[in-house]
């Protein structure tokens, strides 16, 4: 399987296509509902964001607490569409990729295309396995948000699937249609 590393450069982003399975390695940042709300506040007030966006990947995830001796608790993606309204401003400021689960709105898909970014999905609910791919974890902002704080993760070969690529293709539509086509031709 193809391996890609963060930060994601333009050439890498443009080489990814909906439905492709890749292994993601490098630094990614967790941020979900509460952290996105705060990031929008930062943008509105002209304040610095917790991390530099250019080329970076956000993982919509809030892990369970870290057990003794482990790097992270169970971790998997949360439903991405809840962050939809807060995504275009981040893409416009250089965010290169997102890892989540489920589909995105038309507006977000358009913004992904316009800003040459990529949206990946990780397998929802496979959180015990998801933890095995995290090699380091550091809370870098908003510790008061507990599970929803912004964390800097170092991941190694996290299996993800390209869900929406920079050309606007959508793995959900394509996957479901392809399956139904095959089913029809076999009936």
């Amino acid at each position: 399987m193809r391996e890609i590393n963060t930060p994601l450069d333009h050439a890498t982003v443009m080489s990814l296509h909906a439905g492709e399975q890749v292994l993601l390695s490098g630094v990614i940042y967790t941020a979900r509902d509460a952290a996105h709300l705060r990031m929008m506040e930062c943008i509105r007030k002209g304040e610095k964001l917790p991390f530099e966006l250019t080329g970076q990947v956000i993982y919509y995830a809030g892990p369970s607490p870290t057990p003794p001796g482990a790097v992270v608790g169970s971790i998997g993606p949360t439903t991405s569409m809840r962050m939809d309204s807060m995504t275009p401003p981040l893409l416009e400021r250089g965010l290169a990729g997102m890892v989540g689960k489920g589909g995105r709105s038309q507006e977000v898909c358009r913004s992904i295309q316009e800003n040459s970014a990529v949206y990946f999905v990780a397998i929802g609910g496979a959180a015990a396995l998801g933890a095995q791919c995290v090699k380091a974890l550091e809370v870098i902002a908003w510790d008061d948000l507990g599970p929803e704080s912004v964390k800097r993760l170092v991941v190694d070969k996290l299996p993800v699937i390209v869900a929406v690529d920079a050309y606007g293709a959508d793995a959900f539509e394509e996957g479901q249609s392809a399956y139904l086509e095959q089913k029809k031709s076999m009936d």
Partner: protein
Amino acid sequence: MVRELDARQIEETVCELCIRACRELPEDIGKRMEEAARDEDWDKARAILELLLKNADVARKSAVPICQDTGMAVVFCEVGQDVHITGSFEEAICAGVRKGYTEGYLRKSVVGDPLRRKNTGDNTPPVIHLRLVPGDRVRLTVAPKGAGSENMSRMTMLTPAQGMEGVRQFVMETVRLAGANPCPPMILGIGVGGNFERAPELAKEALLDSLDTWNPDPFYADLEKEWLDEINAMGIGPQGLGGRTTCLGLHIHQEATHIACLPVAVNVGCHVTRHATAVL
């Protein structure tokens, strides 16, 4: 004959049930997932199902949560009329959840106020459903419910004229709107009848039925089978990426209702619809 029960026993039991529910997939769901993986005719979909089964195995063996969203604790209590509880019943359940979510390294996913949204830090309060029943036992079921699936649940007040077809359409529409979001393959609990607050309760109770069973009333069992097949023909598939396995199981709980009402609720569950039960 009144049986004495110390509330601390309830606290200990709830604590243990929270932890167990989050780490161990119910047996009937595991079995059904294995069958689904064998019957899945789309390669990518089968690979996802096999990964989910591997994850459940790792979680059980390593004693870690199957999913990071260890949910809001939903506690079903059936208290025998001949039981006398010493100590506060509700506080014991709350304390049990607090203890379980701390000792089990489970995620604290509850905010104390829906608009002001400050995390309570201990996953309390739980949602408690209480029923008084004959006998001297206390039956406790903890069903931690994650938000991905819960957010896709819906409720409506149909008219009697809309009938069975109206209910079917509402169920199918709920599934289509949910799509990939509730981590398919999903499990569905459908409540039909009751009233505005009973239909959703019926739906959640239906969600916890074993996947090995059908509604004891053949009229409803037939609907369960038909609707399950209809959903699995949609092609949504595991994680919404296409495939045969969109729904692992579907149950309907029905109840008496007003002559002018047809309340319907669909509680969506994910492939990790967790629950653990103990009887004191």
